[in-house]
């Protein structure tokens, strides 16, 4: 499979169809992989794909990132199904044009949740929760796919993937608050959760604004809670569930539990799943005349 991807990447670079192919390469130790920008056809052999390819590479397509200023006209990108959903969402939000990107899709069998858990194979003990019941292991929107794409039923509703969400929702408010208070105690506000997110698109993040300062920048309880709750709210209906915020958190706080619950709420109320359609707008930036709330009519 990877040979077909490499050949296609080589051709794209040789023909000048893309300026760069963003993919995965071997990392600095055997359990890790790393994002790589391949610019020369002779370097395509660095590209790999296996269950250690966790990173959601579409973050490099987000216009907030400096890489998009490098003057690339068209970017080739290797994506597993969930990453391609992130690309679709970026396009649906006008953060990217479909003709700016060439998507090399890979058939995915799931990835590990953390590099630390890689022991040579993928199994129930180390598979990321997002890979359970995933309906885009055969990706949706691709320009190249190695082999035939079988038909997949993707009509099912969004379901939360981590059992922790149900566990938290079953708690009393004060218990749930205590859980987050204790976990957030570790947060030092490095903003890794923001920087890895393919959908954090603001040129100036609300937490970096100083006049006025909406969110206290210090990592005390108020600063931490207001940051994480705001982050979760800003991703409602937009998060595609790559889980990178949780994986990237250096203090191992499961911040994507908020996003999972939000997706469930959006599904329940609007029947919307992010990242499946280029045209359909997410519910919080549009309205429908048959909205169930009266105030909008």
């Amino acid at each position: 499979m990877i040979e077909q991807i490499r050949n296609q990447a080589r051709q794209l670079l040789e023909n000048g169809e893309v300026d760069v192919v963003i993919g995965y390469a071997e990392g600095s130790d055997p359990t890790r992989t790393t994002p790589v920008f391949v610019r020369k056809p002779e370097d395509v052999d660095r590209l790999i794909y296996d269950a250690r390819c966790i990173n959601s590479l579409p973050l490099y397509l987000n216009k907030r990132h400096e890489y998009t200023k490098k003057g690339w006209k068209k970017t080739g990108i290797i994506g597993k199904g969930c990453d391609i959903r992130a690309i679709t969402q970026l396009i649906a939000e006008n953060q990217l044009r479909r003709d700016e990107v060439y998507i090399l899709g890979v058939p995915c069998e799931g990835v590990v949740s953390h590099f630390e858990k890689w022991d040579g194979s993928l199994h129930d003990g180390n598979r990321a929760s997002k890979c359970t019941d995933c309906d885009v292991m055969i990706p949706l929107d691709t320009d190249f796919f190695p082999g035939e794409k079988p038909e997949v039923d993707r009509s099912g509703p969004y379901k939360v993937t981590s059992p922790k969400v149900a566990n938290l929702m079953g708690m009393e408010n004060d218990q749930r608050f205590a859980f987050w208070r204790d976990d957030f105690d570790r947060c030092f506000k490095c903003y890794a959760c923001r920087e890895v997110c393919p959908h954090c698109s603001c040129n100036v993040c609300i937490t970096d604004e100083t006049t006025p300062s909406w969110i206290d920048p210090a990592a005390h309880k108020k600063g931490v809670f207001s940051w994480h709750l705001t982050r979760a709210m800003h991703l409602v209906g937009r998060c595609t569930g790559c889980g990178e915020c949780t994986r990237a958190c250096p203090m191992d706080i499961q911040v994507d539990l908020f996003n999972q619950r939000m997706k469930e709420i959006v599904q329940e109320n609007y029947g919307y799943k992010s990242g499946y359609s280029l045209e359909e707008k997410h519910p919080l930036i549009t309205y429908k005349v048959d909205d169930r709330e009266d105030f909008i009519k």
Partner: protein
Amino acid sequence: MRTATIQKSDLGKAIDLLVQADLRVIAPRLQPRLEEDGPDAIDVLTLVEVKSGENHQVGEGLLPLNGVKEFLFAKHEPLFAYEKRGKKIDIIPVHHEYPRTVIVGVRPCDAASIASLNAVFSDANAGFEDPFFTRRRERTTIVTYSCTAPDASCFCTSVDLAPDSSRGSDLHFTEIGGDLIHVEVLTEAGEAIANLLESLLEGEGDQQQREKAGAAVKEKLTRIRDAAPIKDWLDNLDNFDDEMWERLGEKCIGCGSCTFLCPTCHCFDIVDENKGSKGYRVKFWDSCQFDHFTLHASGHNPRDWQYKRYRNRFNCKFKIYPEKFEQQGCVGCGRCIRGCPVNLDITEYMAEVAAKAAG
């Protein structure tokens, strides 16, 4: 100073004795992943205050996620309160507690980092002292514990340390086989702690056995780099624009994890947290990896690309720190490697520089 031994199974009792002596005891504690947390959760080892010796992981696990840094240089700290009355502003002091603290089970890399922080926060040359840091430092005793199982990201031996170094330590523990721990009393503060533990200490430690145990662990380190040529190479300003910086650094996403996890990174910001006519002036951790860290009011940003920000971080560790503070900027703990979401690896830079320096 003296040596002794202690049984590993008595460490819980040791913590109890320290707690009973009215010390604030900080020790590593594991928050294990539960089945209900789902497959995305992992075990979390952190340094936390413990109230008894019942639940601690001194000598277990490798490195707590947080280092000793946050117990000396607080994540956030109110400097003073203020209140505006017409044109007048009242400055109101804020009360700070500086309890006598002992941090038990500190790994040698973290202990070595304290001298690096100290050089910044009590800079004798500049005649400047950060009283918050120095008062905490004075009232904190460090009990180190030699590593037994370094992982693939550890590289302390590349920066002039070792898994059994006692630099920055007051009282140093090294496992020497079986249930036995070799104890070295290194400072007066360490002696005070040893006296509290007297009922658990026995005889004299075998220094030879301790050296042997340390050397055996050193053998397990696999990530070995030559840091010696780095400073000279960085001193050559032509290399400031070397192609390496962008090639290795272009994948960096500027998340700042490395700086917040780093035991020697110490940058901070100060803001006024205002509410109506009063508020607090607060000091809190900042990071050179943020794009607005060097953003000027004019809109100009001298570090306008992420790779330049990482270049600054590398220079800070291997050039600025030794030059300005005569201390090491990197202690080889490997947290920045473990924590990086895109596998940007400081030791790759070290290897590349060594290769370039060798021509």
